[in-house]
Protein backbone atom coordinates (compact mmCIF):
# COMPACT_ATOMS: atom_id res chain seq x y z
CA UNK A 1 0.00 0.00 0.00
CA UNK A 2 1.40 3.39 -0.98
CA UNK A 3 2.12 5.94 1.72
CA UNK A 4 0.22 9.09 2.59
CA UNK A 5 2.33 10.93 0.04
CA UNK A 6 3.31 8.94 -2.99
CA UNK A 7 4.80 10.09 -6.26
CA UNK A 8 6.17 8.27 -9.24
CA UNK A 9 8.28 9.70 -12.04
CA UNK A 10 7.35 13.35 -11.54
CA UNK A 11 8.71 15.51 -14.33
CA UNK A 12 8.23 19.24 -14.68
CA UNK A 13 10.11 21.44 -17.10
CA UNK A 14 10.14 25.21 -17.39
CA UNK A 15 11.57 26.03 -20.77
CA UNK A 16 15.01 24.44 -20.83
CA UNK A 17 15.13 23.78 -17.12
CA UNK A 18 14.10 20.35 -15.92
CA UNK A 19 12.97 21.42 -12.46
CA UNK A 20 11.85 17.88 -11.69
CA UNK A 21 13.51 15.09 -13.58
CA UNK A 22 11.68 11.91 -12.59
CA UNK A 23 11.16 12.11 -8.85
CA UNK A 24 9.77 9.17 -6.86
CA UNK A 25 8.61 9.64 -3.29
CA UNK A 26 6.91 7.44 -0.75
CA UNK A 27 6.12 8.83 2.67
CA UNK A 28 4.46 6.34 5.06
CA UNK A 29 1.54 7.64 7.08
CA UNK A 30 2.52 9.48 10.25
CA UNK A 31 6.14 10.03 9.25
CA UNK A 32 8.18 13.02 8.19
CA UNK A 33 10.12 13.19 4.98
CA UNK A 34 12.74 15.89 4.77
CA UNK A 35 13.36 17.02 1.21
CA UNK A 36 16.84 18.40 1.34
CA UNK A 37 18.61 20.36 -1.32
CA UNK A 38 20.05 23.71 -2.32
CA UNK A 39 18.03 26.52 -3.91
CA UNK A 40 16.83 25.59 -7.36
CA UNK A 41 17.14 21.85 -6.73
CA UNK A 42 13.43 21.35 -7.39
CA UNK A 43 12.11 21.13 -3.82
CA UNK A 44 9.52 23.86 -4.23
CA UNK A 45 8.42 22.53 -7.60
CA UNK A 46 7.90 19.10 -6.04
CA UNK A 47 5.77 20.59 -3.27
CA UNK A 48 3.78 22.63 -5.78
CA UNK A 49 3.06 19.53 -7.87
CA UNK A 50 1.96 17.53 -4.83
CA UNK A 51 -0.27 20.32 -3.51
CA UNK A 52 -2.12 20.75 -6.84
CA UNK A 53 -0.61 24.17 -7.50
CA UNK A 54 1.31 22.93 -10.50
CA UNK A 55 0.53 20.18 -12.98
CA UNK A 56 3.50 17.93 -13.65
CA UNK A 57 4.36 17.22 -17.29
CA UNK A 58 4.36 13.52 -16.54
CA UNK A 59 4.30 11.11 -13.65
CA UNK A 60 1.65 10.44 -11.05
CA UNK A 61 1.02 11.36 -7.45
CA UNK A 62 -1.31 10.18 -4.71
CA UNK A 63 -1.82 12.22 -1.55
CA UNK A 64 -3.93 10.99 1.37
CA UNK A 65 -5.07 8.15 -0.89
CA UNK A 66 -6.38 10.55 -3.56
CA UNK A 67 -5.03 10.90 -7.09
CA UNK A 68 -3.62 14.43 -7.29
CA UNK A 69 -4.09 14.81 -11.03
CA UNK A 70 -7.59 13.35 -11.21
CA UNK A 71 -9.15 14.82 -8.07
CA UNK A 72 -7.24 17.95 -7.12
CA UNK A 73 -10.19 19.42 -5.22
CA UNK A 74 -10.51 16.38 -2.98
CA UNK A 75 -6.76 16.57 -2.31
CA UNK A 76 -7.08 20.22 -1.30
CA UNK A 77 -9.56 19.22 1.38
CA UNK A 78 -7.02 16.87 2.94
CA UNK A 79 -3.85 18.93 2.92
CA UNK A 80 -2.36 21.94 4.60
CA UNK A 81 0.34 24.00 2.94
CA UNK A 82 2.72 26.38 4.57
CA UNK A 83 4.90 28.05 2.00
CA UNK A 84 8.20 29.86 1.88
CA UNK A 85 6.53 33.18 2.49
CA UNK A 86 4.15 33.83 5.32
CA UNK A 87 1.06 33.91 3.13
CA UNK A 88 -1.16 36.01 5.35
CA UNK A 89 -2.98 39.23 4.59
CA UNK A 90 -1.01 41.95 6.33
CA UNK A 91 -3.98 44.28 6.73
CA UNK A 92 -6.16 41.65 8.34
CA UNK A 93 -5.74 40.71 11.96
CA UNK A 94 -4.45 37.27 12.89
CA UNK A 95 -7.95 36.23 13.85
CA UNK A 96 -9.48 37.50 10.61
CA UNK A 97 -6.85 35.68 8.58
CA UNK A 98 -7.57 32.36 10.27
CA UNK A 99 -11.32 32.81 10.06
CA UNK A 100 -11.08 33.54 6.36
CA UNK A 101 -9.03 30.41 5.74
CA UNK A 102 -11.49 28.36 7.81
CA UNK A 103 -14.41 29.68 5.77
CA UNK A 104 -12.59 28.85 2.56
CA UNK A 105 -12.03 25.31 3.83
CA UNK A 106 -15.85 25.35 3.79
CA UNK A 107 -16.30 25.53 7.55
CA UNK A 108 -19.37 27.31 8.91
CA UNK A 109 -18.77 30.84 10.19
CA UNK A 110 -19.22 29.85 13.82
CA UNK A 111 -16.93 26.84 13.55
CA UNK A 112 -14.29 28.89 11.75
CA UNK A 113 -14.43 31.44 14.54
CA UNK A 114 -14.03 28.84 17.27
CA UNK A 115 -11.18 27.13 15.45
CA UNK A 116 -9.37 30.43 14.90
CA UNK A 117 -9.53 31.19 18.61
CA UNK A 118 -8.22 27.70 19.40
CA UNK A 119 -5.25 28.04 17.04
CA UNK A 120 -4.35 31.55 18.19
CA UNK A 121 -4.13 30.16 21.71
CA UNK A 122 -2.05 27.17 20.65
CA UNK A 123 0.38 29.27 18.65
CA UNK A 124 0.87 31.82 21.36
CA UNK A 125 -0.74 34.55 19.30
CA UNK A 126 -3.79 35.24 21.46
CA UNK A 127 -2.46 38.58 22.69
CA UNK A 128 -1.84 39.79 19.16
CA UNK A 129 -4.96 38.19 17.68
CA UNK A 130 -6.78 41.44 16.95
CA UNK A 131 -3.87 43.40 15.56
CA UNK A 132 -3.25 43.64 11.81
CA UNK A 133 -0.51 41.14 10.97
CA UNK A 134 1.73 43.81 9.46
CA UNK A 135 2.55 44.69 13.07
CA UNK A 136 3.71 41.10 13.71
CA UNK A 137 7.34 40.03 13.83
CA UNK A 138 8.64 37.63 11.20
CA UNK A 139 8.38 34.72 13.60
CA UNK A 140 4.80 35.56 14.53
CA UNK A 141 3.81 35.73 10.88
CA UNK A 142 5.34 32.33 10.24
CA UNK A 143 3.47 30.89 13.18
CA UNK A 144 0.24 32.40 11.87
CA UNK A 145 0.95 31.00 8.43
CA UNK A 146 1.49 27.57 9.93
CA UNK A 147 -1.69 27.92 11.99
CA UNK A 148 -3.56 28.75 8.77
CA UNK A 149 -2.27 25.52 7.25
CA UNK A 150 -3.61 23.61 10.27
CA UNK A 151 -7.10 25.06 10.37
CA UNK A 152 -8.75 21.78 9.43
CA UNK A 153 -6.08 19.56 11.07
CA UNK A 154 -5.32 18.02 7.70
CA UNK A 155 -3.92 14.47 7.70
CA UNK A 156 -1.14 15.50 5.30
CA UNK A 157 0.96 18.61 5.63
CA UNK A 158 3.46 20.25 3.30
CA UNK A 159 5.92 22.80 4.58
CA UNK A 160 8.20 24.56 2.17
CA UNK A 161 11.25 25.83 4.04
CA UNK A 162 9.27 26.67 7.16
CA UNK A 163 12.15 28.17 9.10
CA UNK A 164 14.11 29.99 6.38
CA UNK A 165 15.07 33.41 7.67
CA UNK A 166 13.94 32.80 11.23
CA UNK A 167 16.08 33.51 14.26
CA UNK A 168 17.15 30.53 16.40
CA UNK A 169 14.48 31.09 19.05
CA UNK A 170 11.64 31.17 16.54
CA UNK A 171 13.12 28.24 14.69
CA UNK A 172 13.10 26.24 17.90
CA UNK A 173 9.50 27.28 18.55
CA UNK A 174 8.44 26.16 15.10
CA UNK A 175 10.31 22.88 15.49
CA UNK A 176 8.40 22.19 18.69
CA UNK A 177 5.11 22.82 16.91
CA UNK A 178 6.10 20.51 14.08
CA UNK A 179 7.11 17.75 16.49
CA UNK A 180 3.81 17.97 18.34
CA UNK A 181 1.99 17.87 15.05
CA UNK A 182 3.75 14.72 13.93
CA UNK A 183 3.27 13.01 17.27
CA UNK A 184 -0.44 13.56 16.63
CA UNK A 185 -0.22 11.37 13.54
CA UNK A 186 0.13 13.93 10.75
CA UNK A 187 2.17 12.96 7.73
CA UNK A 188 4.57 15.71 6.80
CA UNK A 189 6.72 16.57 3.84
CA UNK A 190 9.18 19.26 4.75
CA UNK A 191 11.66 20.96 2.47
CA UNK A 192 14.73 22.57 3.88
CA UNK A 193 18.16 23.84 3.06
CA UNK A 194 19.22 23.31 6.64
CA UNK A 195 20.81 19.95 7.08
CA UNK A 196 20.46 20.31 10.80
CA UNK A 197 16.72 20.78 10.43
CA UNK A 198 16.24 17.64 8.36
CA UNK A 199 18.39 15.74 10.85
CA UNK A 200 16.31 17.04 13.70
CA UNK A 201 12.78 16.61 12.37
CA UNK A 202 12.67 14.02 9.62
CA UNK A 203 12.40 10.25 9.86
CA UNK A 204 13.54 9.94 6.30
CA UNK A 205 15.60 12.28 4.21
CA UNK A 206 15.56 12.59 0.45
CA UNK A 207 18.39 14.58 -1.05
CA UNK A 208 17.54 16.40 -4.28
CA UNK A 209 19.83 18.13 -6.68
CA UNK A 210 19.03 19.35 -10.22
CA UNK A 211 15.53 17.89 -10.09
CA UNK A 212 16.65 14.39 -9.18
CA UNK A 213 16.69 12.38 -5.99
CA UNK A 214 20.30 11.56 -5.42
CA UNK A 215 19.92 9.71 -2.14
CA UNK A 216 17.26 8.64 0.28
CA UNK A 217 17.27 7.05 3.69
CA UNK A 218 17.35 7.77 7.36
CA UNK A 219 19.82 10.27 8.63
CA UNK A 220 21.95 7.39 9.96
CA UNK A 221 21.88 5.51 6.68
CA UNK A 222 22.94 8.58 4.76
CA UNK A 223 25.73 9.24 7.18
CA UNK A 224 26.89 5.67 6.97
CA UNK A 225 27.11 6.02 3.20
CA UNK A 226 29.51 8.87 3.59
CA UNK A 227 31.93 6.92 5.67
CA UNK A 228 32.52 6.00 9.23
CA UNK A 229 33.04 7.58 12.56
CA UNK A 230 36.09 9.25 13.90
CA UNK A 231 37.45 10.08 17.31
CA UNK A 232 38.41 13.66 17.99
CA UNK A 233 40.60 14.57 20.93
CA UNK A 234 41.71 17.97 22.15
CA UNK A 235 44.60 17.69 24.56
CA UNK A 236 45.29 20.27 27.22
CA UNK A 237 49.08 20.49 26.81
CA UNK A 238 50.74 20.99 23.48
CA UNK A 239 53.57 18.72 24.65
CA UNK A 240 51.15 15.79 24.90
CA UNK A 241 50.28 15.83 21.20
CA UNK A 242 52.94 13.32 20.23
CA UNK A 243 51.98 10.82 22.93
CA UNK A 244 48.27 11.19 22.22
CA UNK A 245 48.95 10.67 18.54
CA UNK A 246 50.73 7.42 19.36
CA UNK A 247 47.76 6.24 21.47
CA UNK A 248 45.28 7.03 18.72
CA UNK A 249 47.38 5.24 16.14
CA UNK A 250 46.80 2.08 18.15
CA UNK A 251 43.03 2.36 17.87
CA UNK A 252 42.65 4.03 14.49
CA UNK A 253 41.74 2.58 11.13
CA UNK A 254 43.65 5.18 9.23
CA UNK A 255 45.92 8.14 9.45
CA UNK A 256 45.73 10.47 12.42
CA UNK A 257 45.42 14.13 11.51
CA UNK A 258 46.79 16.73 13.89
CA UNK A 259 45.90 20.39 14.11
CA UNK A 260 48.73 21.89 16.12
CA UNK A 261 47.21 25.27 16.89
CA UNK A 262 43.97 23.84 18.29
CA UNK A 263 45.72 20.79 19.83
CA UNK A 264 43.15 18.62 18.08
CA UNK A 265 43.77 15.09 16.86
CA UNK A 266 41.38 13.16 14.65
CA UNK A 267 41.45 9.51 13.67
CA UNK A 268 38.95 7.34 11.76
CA UNK A 269 37.67 4.42 13.83
CA UNK A 270 35.15 1.62 13.94
CA UNK A 271 33.70 0.32 17.16
CA UNK A 272 31.63 3.23 18.43
CA UNK A 273 31.18 4.14 22.06
CA UNK A 274 32.96 1.08 23.42
CA UNK A 275 36.11 2.02 21.58
CA UNK A 276 35.81 5.60 22.75
CA UNK A 277 35.80 4.40 26.37
CA UNK A 278 38.98 2.44 25.72
CA UNK A 279 40.66 5.47 24.17
CA UNK A 280 39.77 7.56 27.19
CA UNK A 281 41.13 4.94 29.59
CA UNK A 282 44.37 4.64 27.67
CA UNK A 283 44.90 8.40 27.52
CA UNK A 284 44.21 8.56 31.24
CA UNK A 285 46.68 5.79 31.98
CA UNK A 286 49.35 7.75 30.16
CA UNK A 287 48.49 10.83 32.21
CA UNK A 288 47.34 12.95 29.30
CA UNK A 289 44.93 15.68 30.31
CA UNK A 290 42.19 16.21 27.75
CA UNK A 291 39.99 19.25 27.16
CA UNK A 292 37.53 17.51 24.88
CA UNK A 293 36.97 14.11 23.39
CA UNK A 294 34.20 12.74 21.31
CA UNK A 295 33.01 10.26 18.78
CA UNK A 296 32.16 12.30 15.70
CA UNK A 297 29.86 11.01 13.04
CA UNK A 298 29.56 12.66 9.65
CA UNK A 299 27.16 15.57 9.55
CA UNK A 300 24.61 15.95 6.79
CA UNK A 301 26.86 18.66 5.45
CA UNK A 302 29.47 15.97 4.88
CA UNK A 303 26.80 13.79 3.33
CA UNK A 304 25.69 16.49 0.96
CA UNK A 305 29.20 17.28 -0.04
CA UNK A 306 30.06 13.69 -0.78
CA UNK A 307 26.82 13.12 -2.73
CA UNK A 308 26.78 16.23 -4.86
CA UNK A 309 30.38 17.25 -4.96
CA UNK A 310 29.45 20.68 -3.68
CA UNK A 311 28.32 21.95 -0.31
CA UNK A 312 24.70 22.95 0.07
CA UNK A 313 25.31 26.62 0.69
CA UNK A 314 27.46 27.10 -2.36
CA UNK A 315 24.68 26.15 -4.71
CA UNK A 316 22.62 29.16 -3.76
CA UNK A 317 23.75 30.83 -6.98
CA UNK A 318 21.12 29.09 -9.09
CA UNK A 319 17.97 31.11 -9.17
CA UNK A 320 14.83 29.55 -7.72
CA UNK A 321 12.72 32.45 -9.01
CA UNK A 322 13.62 31.58 -12.58
CA UNK A 323 12.94 27.93 -12.08
CA UNK A 324 9.47 28.59 -10.70
CA UNK A 325 8.33 30.50 -13.78
Amino acid at each position, binding site marked *: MPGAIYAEGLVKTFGDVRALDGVDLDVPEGTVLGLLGPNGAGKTTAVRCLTT*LLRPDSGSAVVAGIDVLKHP*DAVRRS*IGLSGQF*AAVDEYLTGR*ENLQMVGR*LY*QMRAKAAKARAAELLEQFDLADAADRPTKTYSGGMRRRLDLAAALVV*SPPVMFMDEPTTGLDPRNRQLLWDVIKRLVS*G*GTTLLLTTQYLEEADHLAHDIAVVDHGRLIAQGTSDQLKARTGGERVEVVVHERDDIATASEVLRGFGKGETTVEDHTRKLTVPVTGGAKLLAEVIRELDTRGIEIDDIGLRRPTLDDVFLSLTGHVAEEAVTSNEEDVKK
Partner: protein
Amino acid sequence: MSTVSDSARIAPAGNPVSQSIRDSMVVAQRNLIRMSRIPEMIIYGLIQPIMFVVLFTYVFGGSMQIGGSTSATDYKNFLMAGIFAQTVTFATASSGAGIADDMHKGLIDRFRSLPMARGAVLTGRTFADLVQTALTLVVLAVVALLVGWRVGSDAPTNAGKVLGAFGLLLLLGYAFTWIGALIGMSVRTPEAATSSGLIWLFPVTFISNAFVDTSHMTPWLRHIADWNPFSATVQACRELFGNPGVSTSEAWPMQHPVWASLIYSILIIAVFRTLSVRKYRSATA
Protein backbone atom coordinates in the same frame (compact mmCIF):
# COMPACT_ATOMS: atom_id res chain seq x y z
CA MET B 1 -2.41 19.91 18.38
CA SER B 2 -3.34 16.27 18.23
CA THR B 3 -6.94 16.80 19.20
CA VAL B 4 -9.09 17.36 16.17
CA SER B 5 -11.99 19.39 17.45
CA ASP B 6 -15.37 18.92 15.82
CA SER B 7 -15.17 22.38 14.36
CA ALA B 8 -12.09 21.36 12.46
CA ARG B 9 -13.78 18.62 10.48
CA ILE B 10 -13.65 19.14 6.77
CA ALA B 11 -17.02 19.80 5.26
CA PRO B 12 -18.01 17.76 2.22
CA ALA B 13 -18.20 19.51 -1.12
CA GLY B 14 -21.52 21.34 -1.40
CA ASN B 15 -23.48 22.75 -4.28
CA PRO B 16 -20.88 24.32 -6.59
CA VAL B 17 -22.90 27.46 -7.34
CA SER B 18 -23.72 28.34 -3.75
CA GLN B 19 -20.15 27.46 -2.76
CA SER B 20 -18.85 29.78 -5.44
CA ILE B 21 -21.03 32.64 -4.20
CA ARG B 22 -20.15 31.98 -0.55
CA ASP B 23 -16.41 31.81 -1.26
CA SER B 24 -16.57 34.98 -3.36
CA MET B 25 -18.28 36.76 -0.49
CA VAL B 26 -15.61 35.61 1.98
CA VAL B 27 -12.91 37.00 -0.31
CA ALA B 28 -14.90 40.19 -0.96
CA GLN B 29 -15.25 40.70 2.77
CA ARG B 30 -11.52 40.27 3.17
CA ASN B 31 -10.82 42.87 0.50
CA LEU B 32 -13.31 45.31 1.99
CA ILE B 33 -11.72 44.98 5.43
CA ARG B 34 -8.37 45.67 3.76
CA MET B 35 -9.72 48.76 2.02
CA SER B 36 -11.19 50.08 5.25
CA ARG B 37 -7.74 49.76 6.87
CA ILE B 38 -6.06 51.68 4.02
CA PRO B 39 -8.38 54.72 3.87
CA GLU B 40 -5.71 56.80 2.15
CA MET B 41 -6.16 54.62 -0.94
CA ILE B 42 -9.85 55.52 -1.14
CA ILE B 43 -9.06 59.18 -0.55
CA TYR B 44 -6.40 59.32 -3.28
CA GLY B 45 -8.79 57.44 -5.53
CA LEU B 46 -11.24 60.32 -5.04
CA ILE B 47 -8.87 63.22 -5.46
CA GLN B 48 -8.15 62.54 -9.11
CA PRO B 49 -11.74 62.46 -10.40
CA ILE B 50 -12.64 65.47 -8.26
CA MET B 51 -9.71 67.34 -9.78
CA PHE B 52 -10.92 66.34 -13.24
CA VAL B 53 -14.42 67.65 -12.48
CA VAL B 54 -13.11 70.96 -11.26
CA LEU B 55 -10.39 71.43 -13.88
CA PHE B 56 -12.47 70.42 -16.89
CA THR B 57 -15.41 72.49 -15.71
CA TYR B 58 -13.49 75.68 -15.14
CA VAL B 59 -10.64 75.37 -17.66
CA PHE B 60 -12.39 73.84 -20.69
CA GLY B 61 -15.89 75.06 -19.96
CA GLY B 62 -16.67 77.97 -22.27
CA SER B 63 -14.19 77.02 -24.97
CA MET B 64 -15.82 73.72 -25.95
CA GLN B 65 -18.56 73.46 -28.52
CA ILE B 66 -21.33 71.03 -27.65
CA GLY B 67 -24.06 70.72 -30.27
CA GLY B 68 -23.39 74.24 -31.51
CA SER B 69 -23.37 75.78 -28.05
CA THR B 70 -20.27 77.11 -26.31
CA SER B 71 -22.03 77.76 -23.02
CA ALA B 72 -20.00 76.72 -19.97
CA THR B 73 -23.14 75.32 -18.39
CA ASP B 74 -23.82 73.07 -21.37
CA TYR B 75 -20.27 71.75 -21.29
CA LYS B 76 -20.53 71.07 -17.56
CA ASN B 77 -23.66 69.03 -18.08
CA PHE B 78 -22.10 67.29 -21.06
CA LEU B 79 -18.89 66.52 -19.22
CA MET B 80 -20.10 64.74 -16.09
CA ALA B 81 -21.17 61.50 -17.78
CA GLY B 82 -17.67 61.35 -19.27
CA ILE B 83 -15.91 61.92 -15.96
CA PHE B 84 -18.12 59.41 -14.17
CA ALA B 85 -17.37 56.78 -16.81
CA GLN B 86 -13.66 57.52 -16.76
CA THR B 87 -13.59 57.24 -13.00
CA VAL B 88 -15.23 53.82 -12.93
CA THR B 89 -12.76 52.48 -15.48
CA PHE B 90 -9.84 53.60 -13.32
CA ALA B 91 -10.85 50.93 -10.81
CA THR B 92 -9.07 48.59 -13.25
CA ALA B 93 -5.71 49.70 -11.93
CA SER B 94 -6.45 49.12 -8.25
CA SER B 95 -8.02 45.77 -8.99
CA GLY B 96 -4.99 44.68 -11.00
CA ALA B 97 -2.55 45.97 -8.41
CA GLY B 98 -4.39 44.17 -5.60
CA ILE B 99 -4.32 40.84 -7.40
CA ALA B 100 -0.67 41.24 -8.42
CA ASP B 101 0.11 41.99 -4.78
CA ASP B 102 -1.64 38.80 -3.66
CA MET B 103 0.38 36.85 -6.23
CA HIS B 104 3.58 38.48 -5.13
CA LYS B 105 3.02 37.79 -1.43
CA GLY B 106 2.10 34.15 -1.92
CA LEU B 107 -1.55 34.60 -0.96
CA ILE B 108 -2.73 33.29 -4.31
CA ASP B 109 -0.77 30.09 -3.55
CA ARG B 110 -2.53 29.80 -0.25
CA PHE B 111 -5.93 30.28 -1.87
CA ARG B 112 -5.14 27.85 -4.65
CA SER B 113 -4.25 25.16 -2.13
CA LEU B 114 -7.64 25.52 -0.42
CA PRO B 115 -10.75 23.59 -1.45
CA MET B 116 -12.51 26.77 -2.56
CA ALA B 117 -14.31 27.70 -5.77
CA ARG B 118 -11.80 28.45 -8.51
CA GLY B 119 -13.12 31.82 -9.58
CA ALA B 120 -13.86 33.08 -6.08
CA VAL B 121 -10.57 34.87 -5.39
CA LEU B 122 -10.97 37.05 -8.46
CA THR B 123 -14.74 37.41 -8.19
CA GLY B 124 -14.43 38.45 -4.56
CA ARG B 125 -11.84 41.02 -5.48
CA THR B 126 -13.99 42.47 -8.28
CA PHE B 127 -17.02 42.63 -5.94
CA ALA B 128 -15.02 44.58 -3.40
CA ASP B 129 -13.78 46.93 -6.13
CA LEU B 130 -17.38 47.40 -7.22
CA VAL B 131 -18.31 48.57 -3.72
CA GLN B 132 -15.42 51.01 -3.78
CA THR B 133 -16.43 52.24 -7.22
CA ALA B 134 -19.99 52.83 -6.00
CA LEU B 135 -18.73 54.87 -3.05
CA THR B 136 -16.51 56.90 -5.35
CA LEU B 137 -19.43 57.58 -7.69
CA VAL B 138 -21.60 58.83 -4.83
CA VAL B 139 -18.95 61.30 -3.70
CA LEU B 140 -18.27 62.36 -7.26
CA ALA B 141 -21.97 62.94 -7.99
CA VAL B 142 -22.17 65.21 -4.94
CA VAL B 143 -19.15 67.20 -6.13
CA ALA B 144 -20.67 67.41 -9.61
CA LEU B 145 -23.90 68.78 -8.15
CA LEU B 146 -21.89 71.32 -6.16
CA VAL B 147 -20.18 72.70 -9.27
CA GLY B 148 -23.54 73.00 -10.99
CA TRP B 149 -24.24 69.73 -12.81
CA ARG B 150 -27.98 69.06 -13.16
CA VAL B 151 -29.84 66.08 -14.51
CA GLY B 152 -32.65 66.93 -16.90
CA SER B 153 -30.79 70.03 -18.12
CA ASP B 154 -31.49 69.28 -21.75
CA ALA B 155 -34.31 66.77 -21.82
CA PRO B 156 -36.78 65.44 -19.29
CA THR B 157 -35.64 62.53 -17.15
CA ASN B 158 -36.75 60.69 -14.01
CA ALA B 159 -35.27 58.93 -11.00
CA GLY B 160 -35.48 55.54 -12.70
CA LYS B 161 -33.46 56.71 -15.67
CA VAL B 162 -30.86 58.39 -13.48
CA LEU B 163 -30.46 55.24 -11.40
CA GLY B 164 -30.29 53.25 -14.62
CA ALA B 165 -27.41 55.44 -15.76
CA PHE B 166 -25.53 54.79 -12.52
CA GLY B 167 -26.29 51.08 -12.96
CA LEU B 168 -24.67 51.14 -16.40
CA LEU B 169 -21.67 52.98 -14.97
CA LEU B 170 -21.24 50.37 -12.25
CA LEU B 171 -21.58 47.58 -14.80
CA LEU B 172 -18.90 49.20 -16.96
CA GLY B 173 -16.66 49.62 -13.92
CA TYR B 174 -17.24 45.99 -12.97
CA ALA B 175 -16.41 44.84 -16.50
CA PHE B 176 -13.18 46.84 -16.43
CA THR B 177 -12.10 45.33 -13.08
CA TRP B 178 -12.03 41.96 -14.88
CA ILE B 179 -9.59 43.45 -17.38
CA GLY B 180 -7.63 44.56 -14.32
CA ALA B 181 -7.85 41.04 -12.90
CA LEU B 182 -6.26 39.62 -16.04
CA ILE B 183 -3.52 42.25 -15.93
CA GLY B 184 -2.93 41.50 -12.25
CA MET B 185 -2.59 37.79 -12.98
CA SER B 186 -0.21 38.46 -15.87
CA VAL B 187 2.36 40.85 -14.43
CA ARG B 188 4.94 40.16 -11.77
CA THR B 189 4.60 43.13 -9.44
CA PRO B 190 1.86 45.41 -8.10
CA GLU B 191 3.77 48.42 -9.47
CA ALA B 192 3.70 46.97 -12.98
CA ALA B 193 -0.02 46.25 -12.58
CA THR B 194 -0.73 49.85 -11.60
CA SER B 195 1.15 51.40 -14.48
CA SER B 196 0.07 48.88 -17.12
CA GLY B 197 -3.46 49.15 -15.74
CA LEU B 198 -3.53 52.90 -16.34
CA ILE B 199 -1.54 53.53 -19.52
CA TRP B 200 -4.05 52.04 -21.96
CA LEU B 201 -6.97 53.67 -20.17
CA PHE B 202 -5.93 57.11 -21.39
CA PRO B 203 -6.39 56.41 -25.11
CA VAL B 204 -9.54 54.40 -24.35
CA THR B 205 -11.13 57.22 -22.38
CA PHE B 206 -9.84 60.09 -24.55
CA ILE B 207 -10.54 58.62 -28.00
CA SER B 208 -14.19 58.76 -27.10
CA ASN B 209 -17.08 61.13 -26.65
CA ALA B 210 -16.27 61.63 -22.95
CA PHE B 211 -14.73 65.10 -23.11
CA VAL B 212 -15.41 66.34 -26.64
CA ASP B 213 -18.01 66.11 -29.35
CA THR B 214 -16.71 63.38 -31.71
CA SER B 215 -18.09 65.17 -34.78
CA HIS B 216 -15.01 67.39 -34.70
CA MET B 217 -12.62 64.44 -34.96
CA THR B 218 -11.03 63.23 -38.23
CA PRO B 219 -13.26 60.55 -39.72
CA TRP B 220 -11.13 57.50 -38.88
CA LEU B 221 -10.63 58.65 -35.29
CA ARG B 222 -14.31 59.45 -34.98
CA HIS B 223 -15.10 55.96 -36.20
CA ILE B 224 -13.01 54.45 -33.40
CA ALA B 225 -14.54 56.82 -30.87
CA ASP B 226 -18.09 56.01 -31.91
CA TRP B 227 -17.53 52.27 -31.63
CA ASN B 228 -15.51 52.51 -28.43
CA PRO B 229 -17.37 50.53 -25.74
CA PHE B 230 -16.54 53.31 -23.33
CA SER B 231 -18.36 55.87 -25.56
CA ALA B 232 -21.50 53.76 -25.55
CA THR B 233 -21.83 54.00 -21.76
CA VAL B 234 -21.06 57.73 -21.78
CA GLN B 235 -23.69 58.29 -24.45
CA ALA B 236 -26.22 56.13 -22.62
CA CYS B 237 -25.66 58.12 -19.42
CA ARG B 238 -26.14 61.44 -21.22
CA GLU B 239 -29.40 60.20 -22.63
CA LEU B 240 -30.61 58.89 -19.31
CA PHE B 241 -29.45 61.95 -17.37
CA GLY B 242 -31.16 64.21 -19.90
CA ASN B 243 -27.86 66.03 -20.46
CA PRO B 244 -26.73 67.64 -23.74
CA GLY B 245 -24.61 65.84 -26.31
CA VAL B 246 -27.02 64.02 -28.64
CA SER B 247 -24.82 62.13 -31.04
CA THR B 248 -25.12 62.87 -34.74
CA SER B 249 -23.25 59.66 -35.53
CA GLU B 250 -24.79 56.92 -37.64
CA ALA B 251 -22.84 54.22 -35.74
CA TRP B 252 -25.12 51.65 -34.12
CA PRO B 253 -23.74 52.03 -30.57
CA MET B 254 -24.39 55.78 -30.74
CA GLN B 255 -27.93 55.24 -31.93
CA HIS B 256 -28.71 52.58 -29.30
CA PRO B 257 -26.31 53.51 -26.50
CA VAL B 258 -28.13 51.79 -23.63
CA TRP B 259 -28.22 48.45 -25.40
CA ALA B 260 -24.71 48.90 -26.71
CA SER B 261 -23.44 49.69 -23.23
CA LEU B 262 -25.12 46.62 -21.75
CA ILE B 263 -23.88 44.30 -24.50
CA TYR B 264 -20.33 45.63 -24.41
CA SER B 265 -20.04 45.35 -20.63
CA ILE B 266 -21.45 41.83 -20.49
CA LEU B 267 -19.19 40.79 -23.34
CA ILE B 268 -16.13 42.19 -21.58
CA ILE B 269 -17.07 40.38 -18.37
CA ALA B 270 -17.62 37.09 -20.21
CA VAL B 271 -14.31 37.24 -22.07
CA PHE B 272 -12.06 38.63 -19.36
CA ARG B 273 -13.56 36.58 -16.56
CA THR B 274 -12.93 33.40 -18.55
CA LEU B 275 -9.36 34.40 -19.36
CA SER B 276 -8.59 35.54 -15.81
CA VAL B 277 -9.96 32.43 -14.14
CA ARG B 278 -8.08 30.24 -16.60
CA LYS B 279 -4.93 32.15 -15.76
CA TYR B 280 -5.64 31.78 -12.04
CA ARG B 281 -5.96 28.01 -12.33
CA SER B 282 -2.48 27.69 -13.73
CA ALA B 283 -0.95 30.61 -11.86
CA THR B 284 2.58 30.36 -10.57
CA ALA B 285 3.94 32.97 -8.24
